């Protein structure tokens, strides 16, 4: 390394040092510490006491609520992520037409994304109110007695999945950018081959969008496995009725801050991390088979 390079390195590190310090102190250290705490009986105020695998053992064998919360979260993810993708692609296709005032429509569909989650959750509580809510009010107009939505054991998760579709604006914008990237020449070639609109969508648009789909799929998966704020606000942190909205992160939060079981909650957090890691890796590995990048 020449003197010049050394000076560049020093200056570079110096400029990056606020981030490096912050990362080490506020991200890496807590993450490593939580791994240690997951093997401890720890309540924040007393020093952690090593108990080995006991927290993990208790989670797997003594805690039916843990399994219920895992089930709820996986159920939500299994429906909300694919539905979200379908809706955001559909919206992006619609908003990719050449129509006057398109930027206004795009803004309208993106707007829900910038509404704070707490505010939108309260809003949806009103919309989904079984008696005076907007949805059941409209259903009543056409002679249908709507379900209890968030108050019903069977409808609470579908309600939340429905609600999650309200926030597809973010993914939609990314798909719009992806659509703009699709070369016109491919469509022209397809036209010459006599392809129908559906065939163009199926054999040109979708393959060219696969990198964007992969990105949105991974982000959607990570976000929905950590789904917390909405249920916390809408059920007052209780996961009612009958644990049907007791999502994994909510149960984790209750254990840590309601009952001071930080070690137990850390173990839960690491298990969730492993689930997310495994799901993401599986997606990335499988992507070699179905994701097409430009020029490949």
């Amino acid at each position: 390394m020449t003197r010049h390079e050394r000076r560049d390195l020093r200056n570079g590190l110096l400029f990056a040092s606020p981030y490096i310090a912050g990362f080490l102190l506020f991200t890496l250290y807590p993450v490593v510490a939580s791994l240690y705490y997951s093997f401890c009986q720890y309540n924040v105020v007393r020093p952690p006491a090593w108990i080995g695998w006991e927290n993990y053992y208790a989670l797997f064998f003594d805690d039916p609520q843990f399994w219920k919360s895992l089930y709820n979260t996986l159920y939500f993810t299994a429906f909300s992520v694919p539905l979200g993708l379908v809706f955001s692609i559909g919206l992006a296709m619609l908003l990719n037409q050449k129509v006057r005032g398109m930027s206004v429509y795009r803004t309208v569909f993106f707007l829900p994304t910038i509404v704070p989650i707490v505010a939108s959750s309260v809003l949806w509580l009103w919309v989904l109110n079984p008696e005076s809510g907007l949805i059941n009010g409209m259903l009543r107009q056409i002679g249908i007695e709507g379900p209890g939505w968030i108050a019903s054991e069977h409808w609470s998760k579908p309600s939340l999945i429905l609600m999650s579709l309200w926030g597809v604006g973010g993914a939609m914008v990314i798909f719009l950018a992806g659509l703009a990237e699709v070369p016109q020449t491919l469509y022209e070639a397809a036209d010459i081959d006599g392809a129908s609109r559906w065939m163009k969508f199926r054999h040109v648009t979708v393959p060219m969008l696969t990198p964007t789909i992969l990105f949105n799929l991974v982000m959607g998966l990570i976000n929905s496995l950590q789904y917390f704020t909405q249920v916390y606000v809408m059920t007052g942190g209780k996961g009612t009725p009958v644990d049907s909205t007791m999502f994994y992160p909510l149960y984790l939060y209750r254990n840590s801050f309601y009952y001071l079981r930080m070690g137990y909650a850390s173990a839960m957090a690491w298990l969730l991390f492993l689930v997310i890691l495994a799901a993401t890796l599986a997606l990335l590995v499988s992507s070699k088979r179905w994701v097409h990048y430009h020029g490949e």
Partner: protein
Amino acid sequence: MKTFLIWMAVICCGAVVFAALWPRQAVGGAERRALAEGRTIIQYWDRHQGHEHDMRLVLIDEFNRSQDKIYIRALSVGFNSIMEKLLTAIAGSAPPDLCSLESTMLAQLASQGCLMPLEGFMASNPEFAQDNYFPHAWESVAIDGHVWGIPTTTDVYCLLWNKNAFRIAGLDPERPPRTFDELQQYAEKLTIRDGDTLEQVGFIPWQPWDMTGMWGLIFGGRLCDEKGNAVCGNEPALVKTMEWQQSFAADPNSANNPPYAMDPEAMSSFTRSLGAYMSANNPFYSGKVAMMAEGEWQVTFIPKYAPNLDWGVAPLPTPEGVEPMVMGWPCVVDCIPRGSRHPNEAWAYIKWFYSSRPGGGPSPASDYCYAIHNICPRKKDVLQERFTSNPKFKVFVDVLFDRKVVSLPSMPLIQFYTDELERQRERVVFRKTTPKAALMETQQKVNAELERQRRFVDLSP
């Protein structure tokens, strides 16, 4: 020139941001003066919100004006997040000097060494003598031979009923139900259905508060044994409590549901549709719920939110064959977190707040209870004429002297325990489990957690 202007703009913006964030600027004028005078600033975290916190501020102002050494800086932290914030602050060695809490949290925090015992400060001060307090209030702060907090307010539950709904149902509006049988008959008459939906409900035991543990005590049961272990699974009274609550939810597979039973899904929809508690849409105020077990604070709430409501209050009905009892719970208490930098000054404020004013006037604490219409935890305070002259409030006061007061035990896991009871009560209502199995599961879960904690901390009573 252009670069110069850009730099000037950046510097000006920076100066504005700094000025806005500078801590001295964030505090009020009175506090700046107190700082200039060199007074000790005491951080006080208040569990109360809204008008209840405002009243606290009025009294704290009075204290601050009377002082030249201490200044109290009060912050409304609110009930929901106080535990989380306090824990973080204690773990980070930056706790407030003073804190108000729910007594259930007190038991949990005291057992983990988060609070300072107060008996050293209280020594020989007659204002803080145990005999002054209602036993349940004292027991909520005196745990393991130490006093961990001073009770500020306590609550007592009675039956509130809507007289107009009684008239419409053909019931005598001046005669509330006195036994559980009567309560159920009244509930049936006061429930109005439209097909599967509920237009008006007579009574739901868990509305507005789930009090399964409390009802268990009213039924004559106990939640813990002498060693502090959960015993609900083996208590017939607790099983009866669950069965009684379950009887309000119709069993879809049975033809013999009691006439007051309602469809559980319809009940869930009904309760989730109800308006906000502290608003004119409170279901009791708006006539959606005709009877409920509620606390004395309603004496201020109802005139504020529903001035035209015609309502009555009476002691809770009693289950057959059980001594009449009353629910007293919980207490809000003032405590000093461990790690407080100014415990002596914090105590000086507590002493002022709970002592009679010079000349024998009522204590600021009793003024506070009066302003928010809560029960004073000290017997002599609540017998002041201003409390008993209100005939409705007097019902709440009288019942505390007339009946045996039952309250939740001050065990470290009481929050965990009552939350689990509440969760199991819901499962029982939806017939996911039987009352007996639900209580056994609760007992095992609570005792397993107690066992885990006891291995590391001495939690023996």
